[in-house]
């Protein structure tokens, strides 16, 4: 209820905003038709100080207003703000966007605003003039798609994607165009004046599929990766194909008749446009990568290169009238890998955020204006034409998928079932591109308004009807949902474990047989490309490079962090509280406890293979938290086994005890975690820090930055993804990392490196079992929770704690494999 009221307020605010802009706009424009003439002179006079010279010649004006001077940027800002507010509004009440796609909501709001504008006879801003849309609105969206393209699954499916995108779009355009032309022959409908070229032109407009809404639904339901990537890729390359077709048909539409030579030229042009776009993309991508090789001294402007080069690729492609969409996509894919390795971590973050931000705002605006323009534009309504357009669009899409899938299926390792095909065809919504193209139709076409109306009808029909109904239908089709209430903890754990196993086996089998080419490219890449494009071109394993980055950031963060950074403390306290509560009923589990356990399990277990997760929600940045976390664990364990005894001197060092436990609570259970951390950090972190003049504070402190480090990169994603944030992402790496590494790590290379494990005490099973009880005894139930700064009880000598908590990790380890058992011994 509260949220709904929030939405209401937000809407009110929006309207106010928009009225504010509009009223002023009214004042400034006496007649809408003479808009530009009135503005122009003012723009020319911008340098002259006096605004209203004829009012009072003698006196200096105390208060002046020069609205026309700021009109364009001012209104633009207001529109952007309005759209952004709308976006905030949707996500306040979270459930709306689950059932109704965001694009629907945006269009609806646009319709409302359009209605208001229409009632006050206001002209919509001229966003959908060709140049503005194609030069300013489209590039950010495409850049975002290209930059965050999930490369691996995409290239695994590239054949299918291209097949659907190219042939499917051709199929749709020609099919719809011809059928509509056939319809036009009937006299009863009164549309005989539409000739074949115009029909084809129109068909090429509405055959562009926009996958935004469908993708969000697919993600929520958990559709398999193949369908997902096919829809995604189709949406991308569709754009390219459609733009080509459009320009081709638009050219042909002007000609009185078409001979066969023109068709061949059209085909040739098609390849020129496509291949040319890709070539330009490569060119600029490599140049961009090469440029960033030298930017390490000008970190401030590093991100700029990405945007400028990709925009340049886009513009140059436009210049030669080849596929600018393909150019910018190729450019982004090409440069991403190298650029991200060249630029600093912060620049990389900036790039990602800005790309996302621009794309989101651009797309929001487009849908929003779609609603506005629907109301304010002139329509020509023809029942027959529009109904048949809807019908044919639907039928040809379905038929196309069916036929094309039959052809492509034998070549696929994982074939599309009929359910998949239904999902593919039903997911074919029409969107922004279609809309923009309709508005850029040349005025020479006599039924232009009819085409615009029909396009809008198709868009609104597909976005609203299909977009809303696709979720229930897909959920009905494949019943993948598991009812969690019935499950026991065992089931939850085991099921997840099996999923991990299966995904691991999938990796192992390597679903696809592209490995030959992949291998070839990798070699080429390592030998030549990396050497040219990267500043630091030694091939590193992902673990090492990640680790380096982390260490670096860690150090920076540590220096930056003020001494008393307590931001982490409350969470530890609350965690502790919860833990105390959770651990109390040792043998009997209350229903609440079980629920809590389920909660913990479902929230914290690693998501299976986040390959799709990362990019599915269009508006969020990919999250690398989990990957990192696992890598960090691995690496930490490796490091620990490499430096035997490094922690030992550390624990004997002169860390003030009060600081050591400074955020620890009387319950004391956490101390096992802290002690472990301290030891493992002893070698690398503290030594390095000491040499850099920083006093080693508590181990818990040195971990605070690690956690914050994660937020740097993912803070935006947290903010930008309220729709999906019901399920928290994987936890930030850093809190208990090293707690884990015992079992995971030494099994990592069990046979290779029987180095002495850095453990001081051997321990046995019994200790492990008694551990929690022992640790709790001094304070359980007696002391209230202290604020974190309080010094801990004196009685805790870390030396006493060590064996116990080593016991927590060690016995498991010794059970796990022979090799590590030996190492455990030798370390003690």
């Amino acid at each position, binding site marked *: 209820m509260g949220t709904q009221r929030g939405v209401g307020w937000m809407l009110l605010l929006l309207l106010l905003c928009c009225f504010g802009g509009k009223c002023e706009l009214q004042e400034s424009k006496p007649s809408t038709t003479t808009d530009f003439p009135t503005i122009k002179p003012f723009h020319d006079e911008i340098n002259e100080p006096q605004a209203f010279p004829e009012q009072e010649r003698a006196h200096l004006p105390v208060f002046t207003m020069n609205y026309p001077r700021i009109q364009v940027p001012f209104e633009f800002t207001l529109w952007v703000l309005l759209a952004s507010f709308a976006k905030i509004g949707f996500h306040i009440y979270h459930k709306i966007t689950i059932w109704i796609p965001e694009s629907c909501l945006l269009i609806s709001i646009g319709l409302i605003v359009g209605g208001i504008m229409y009632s006050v006879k206001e002209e919509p801003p001229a966003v959908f003039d060709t140049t503005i849309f194609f030069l300013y609105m489209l590039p950010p969206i495409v850049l975002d798609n290209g930059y965050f393209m999930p490369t691996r699954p995409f290239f695994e499916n590239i054949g299918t994607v291209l097949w659907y995108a190219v042939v499917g779009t051709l199929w749709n355009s020609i099919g719809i165009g011809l059928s509509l032309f056939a319809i036009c022959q009937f006299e009863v409908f009164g549309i005989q004046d539409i000739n074949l070229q115009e029909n084809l032109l129109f068909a090429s407009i509405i055959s562009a599929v926009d996958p935004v809404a469908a993708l969000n639904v697919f993600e929520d339901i958990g559709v398999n990766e193949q369908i997902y990537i096919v829809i995604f890729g189709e949406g991308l390359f569709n754009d390219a194909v459609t733009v080509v077709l459009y320009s081709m048909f638009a050219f042909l539409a002007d000609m009185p008749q078409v001979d066969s030579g023109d068709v061949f030229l059209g085909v040739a042009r098609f390849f020129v446009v496509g291949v040319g776009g890709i070539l330009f993309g490569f060119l600029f991508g490599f140049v961009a990568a090469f440029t960033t090789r030298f930017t390490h001294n000008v970190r401030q402007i590093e991100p700029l290169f990405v945007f400028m080069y990709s925009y340049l690729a886009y513009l140059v492609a436009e210049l030669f009238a080849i596929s600018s969409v393909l150019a910018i996509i190729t450019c982004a894919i090409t440069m991403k890998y190298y650029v991200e390795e060249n630029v600093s971590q912060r620049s990389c973050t900036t790039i990602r955020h800005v790309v996302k931000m621009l794309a989101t705002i651009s797309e929001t605006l487009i849908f929003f204006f779609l609603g506005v323009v629907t109301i304010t534009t002139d329509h020509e309504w023809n029942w027959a034409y529009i109904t048949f357009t809807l019908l044919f669009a639907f039928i040809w899409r379905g038929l196309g998928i069916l036929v094309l899938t039959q052809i492509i299926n034998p*070549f696929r390792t994982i074939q599309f079932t009929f359910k998949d095909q239904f999902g593919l065809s039903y997911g074919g919504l029409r969107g922004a591109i279609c809309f923009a193209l309709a508005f850029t139709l040349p005025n020479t076409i006599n039924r232009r308004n009819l085409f615009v109306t029909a396009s809008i009808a198709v868009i609104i029909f597909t976005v609203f009807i299909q977009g809303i109904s696709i979720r229930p239908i897909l959920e009905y089709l494949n019943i993948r949902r*598991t*009812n969690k209430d019935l*499950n*026991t*903890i*065992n*089931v939850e*754990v*085991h*099921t*997840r*474990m*099996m999923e*991990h*196993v299966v*995904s*691991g*086996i999938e*990796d*192992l*089998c*390597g679903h696809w*047989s592209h*490995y*030959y080419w992949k*291998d070839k490219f990798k070699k080429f890449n390592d030998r030549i490309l990396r050497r040219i494009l990267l500043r630091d071109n030694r091939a590193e394993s*992902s*673990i090492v490079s990640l680790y380096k980055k982390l260490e670096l950031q860690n150090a920076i963060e540590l220096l930056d962090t003020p001494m008393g950074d307590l931001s982490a403390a409350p969470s530890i306290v609350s965690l502790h509280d919860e*833990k105390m509560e*959770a*651990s109390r009923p040792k043998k009997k*589990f209350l229903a609440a406890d*079980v629920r809590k*356990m389920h909660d*913990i*399990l479902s929230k*914290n277990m*690693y998501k299976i*293979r986040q390959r799709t997760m990362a990019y599915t929600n269009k508006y969020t940045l990919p999250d690398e938290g*989990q*990957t990192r976390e*696992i890598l960090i*664990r*691995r690496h930490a364990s490796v490091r620990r086994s490499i430096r035997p005894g490094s922690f030992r001197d550390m624990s004997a060092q002169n860390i003030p005890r009060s600081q050591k436990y400074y955020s620890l609570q009387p319950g004391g*259970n956490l101390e096992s*975690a802290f002690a472990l951390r301290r030891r493992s950090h002893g070698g690398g972190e503290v030594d390095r820090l000491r040499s850099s003049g920083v006093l080693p504070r508590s181990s818990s402190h040195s971990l605070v930055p690690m956690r914050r480090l994660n937020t740097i990169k993912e803070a935006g994603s947290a903010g930008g993804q309220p729709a999906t944030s019901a399920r928290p992402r*994987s936890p930030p*790496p850093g*809190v*208990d990392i090293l*707690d*884990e590494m015992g*079992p995971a790590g030494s099994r990592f290379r*069990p*046979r290779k490196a029987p180095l002495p494990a850095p453990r001081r005490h051997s321990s046995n099973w019994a200790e492990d*079992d008694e551990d929690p009880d022992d640790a709790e005894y001094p304070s359980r139930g007696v002391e209230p929770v202290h604020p974190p700064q309080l010094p801990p009880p004196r009685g805790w000598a870390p030396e006493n704690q060590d064996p116990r908590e080593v016991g927590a990790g060690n016995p*498991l380890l010794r*059970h*796990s494999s022979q090799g590590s058992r030996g190492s455990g011994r030798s370390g003690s």
Partner: protein
Amino acid sequence: MGSSSSSMDHIPNAEELMQETGFSAAHLLRLYERFEFLDKDQTGELRPEDFGAIGGLALNPIGDRIISAFFSPGQETVDFPSFVRVLAHFRPNGTNRTRNGTQQEPVNSRTRKLKFAFQLYDQDRDGKISRAELLQVLRAMLGIQVTEEQLQSIAERAIQEADLDRDDAISFDEFKKVQQVSPHPQTPTKETPLHPTEGGR
């Protein structure tokens, strides 16, 4: 597409393997290609490091368990037949082409699948999932936000749920029962259950 370089006659004992595992020739061929790809130094055998080089597997929280499942104890390498035999556990069991009767049990039966999973937990191969073993897996799978305490109580709870004979560990039979309660994704075709002692190896 199947590159022509490797064909069925490169694979040793292809026929037997197909019979034993139920893989089709195409499957086997692809697996062989994959095997060769993984086998960087062309020894005809895979070492744990070869598996570790797979990116996805390195990121799998229980990847090292999966890897070690391919290696029988004391063995450093795995050859192609054993590789395929392990993978055969993962064939969907709806499509069994094996003739009924003579063969004791197809490798992809529900019981065998479960046993494979069970052995991923049961690292010391004593036929029981002890609390420590469960904890270990939990720790690998759960994010690091979870405290040791919570882990322990979860493990405790899981064992309590499954433990029928009160020995504070989950035997294979108990493991199987727990899984049967659930709506398991794999089709629960009723196979003749293995004798419990076989689970222990």
